């Protein structure tokens, strides 16, 4: 019997042809973009102003996007594998929320989406994430600084998750059905984030002298950013009037009760530290940010900006 020798070159010009053919399902998660709101009815409810809704979604979406990126910097650097996985899981949840919120913003007001060259395949949510300058971001400053040590990360995550959970719970009754649905999912996710950070806060406070020392130092470092969370911007004021947003000042007491609960169980005093000042009346929600955001965005956005026509 003559052995059959298959001549690969006769039917393929390259061994890679099979990979770059017409069938994108070769790739684990596909090669093309998908719209996270595909098929979702994004019609505006009566009395809801599109540009105001978009501006509001950018605020909550930017909080999640910036913080997700920060937390993902822990990947491969956490104290142990379990915490590495936990922090990247939390980053992934927040990235998912960011995608939905940025897509909601773009659908509510296409005018917020940066203009890219004709024929660019980049979807609106990515254009918003990768093609805005720091001054166009609307996140609070709490989420910007570098991660610091594990204690700083846990204190910041506790403050962030406690506050975001309170906001998202109220947003479940937003008159915008898309925002309400995004919030209902986020509540389930952020509940796990808050419990995780709360447990670590307690563990570090009651652990060794060194872990407690670091936790107290972390609290002093993070606390000045707490005050900005209660600040009400003009967009939020209008979002409340139109029935789709939450007044952050209205959740301040609820946030403090939860934090107080963690402090008291952990035997830690609520810090007395002045809040980070606004600059000429402007804070994160107005596009006033720390230098650390610019440095983070420079890295996060560099590849997308170099390839505005790129397919990923």
């Amino acid at each position, binding site marked *: 019997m003559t052995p059959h020798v298959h001549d690969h070159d006769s039917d393929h010009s390259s061994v890679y042809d099979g990979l770059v053919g017409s069938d994108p399902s070769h790739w684990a998660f596909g090669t093309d973009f*998908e719209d996270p*709101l*595909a*098929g979702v009815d994004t019609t505006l409810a009566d009395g809801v102003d599109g540009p105001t809704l978009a501006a509001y979604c950018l605020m909550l979406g930017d909080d999640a996007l910036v913080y997700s990126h920060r937390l993902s910097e822990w990947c491969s650097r956490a104290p142990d594998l379990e915490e590495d996985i936990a922090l990247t899981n939390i980053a992934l949840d927040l990235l998912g929320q960011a995608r939905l919120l940025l897509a909601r913003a773009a659908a509510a007001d296409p005018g917020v989406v940066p203009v890219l060259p004709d024929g660019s395949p980049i979807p609106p949510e990515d254009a918003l994430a990768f093609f805005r300058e720091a001054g166009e971001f609307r996140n609070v400053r709490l989420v910007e600084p570098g991660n610091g040590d594990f204690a700083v990360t846990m204190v910041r995550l506790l403050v962030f998750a406690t506050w975001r959970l309170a906001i998202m719970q109220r947003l479940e009754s937003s008159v915008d059905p898309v925002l309400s649905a995004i919030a209902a*999912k986020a509540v389930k996710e952020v509940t*796990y984030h808050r419990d995780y950070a709360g447990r670590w806060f307690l563990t570090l406070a009651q652990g060794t002298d060194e872990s407690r020392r670091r936790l107290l130092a972390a609290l002093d470092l993070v606390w000045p950013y707490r005050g900005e969370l209660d600040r009400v911007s003009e967009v939020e004021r209008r979002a409340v009037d139109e029935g789709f947003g939450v007044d952050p000042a209205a959740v301040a007491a609820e946030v403090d009760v939860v934090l107080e609960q963690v402090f008291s169980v952990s035997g830690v005093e609520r810090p007395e530290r002045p809040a980070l000042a606004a600059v000429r009346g402007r804070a994160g929600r107005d596009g006033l940010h720390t230098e650390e955001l610019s440095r983070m965005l420079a890295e996060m956005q560099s590849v997308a900006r170099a390839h505005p026509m790129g397919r990923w």
Partner: protein
Amino acid sequence: MVTAARAIAASVTDPEMPMLTLEDLGVLRDVREEGRQVVVTITPTYSGCPAMATMRDDLVHRLSDAGYDARVVVSLSPAWSTDWITRRGREALAAHGLSAPGPAPRRDGPVPLTLLPAPRTVSCPRCGSADVRLRSEFGATACKALYACEACLEPFEHVKEI
């Protein structure tokens, strides 16, 4: 109504937990058929679930192979709950060494803070021992927590209640 297209969509499996079909997992919300046109509605488990694109591609593929012109749309509300995992899905999880979720937490008013490990009744899917320890509330995918069995010493994953 069980139609041919619905039966195909219901048999597509989850990319991360292939022992479950999308129907078992409760992410398949609707299959609407108009002639050869099919619109399939799915819902994400978690906001950031990266498997959504694969689910969509798999659904389109399988339905196109059967001659349908398929489109997949997303439904965000009501939010997915592990209570939607079917009985067959729970059995398949257990058969593959994963611990199935208990009832999802019911909520009325503010979400309570839980500083102690979540009170769950979990037993080892391998040896059945109830002597298990939570290692982390976060696992290899967004939907799973990590446990270890103190009796047989094997680690295992628990699909966490949401």
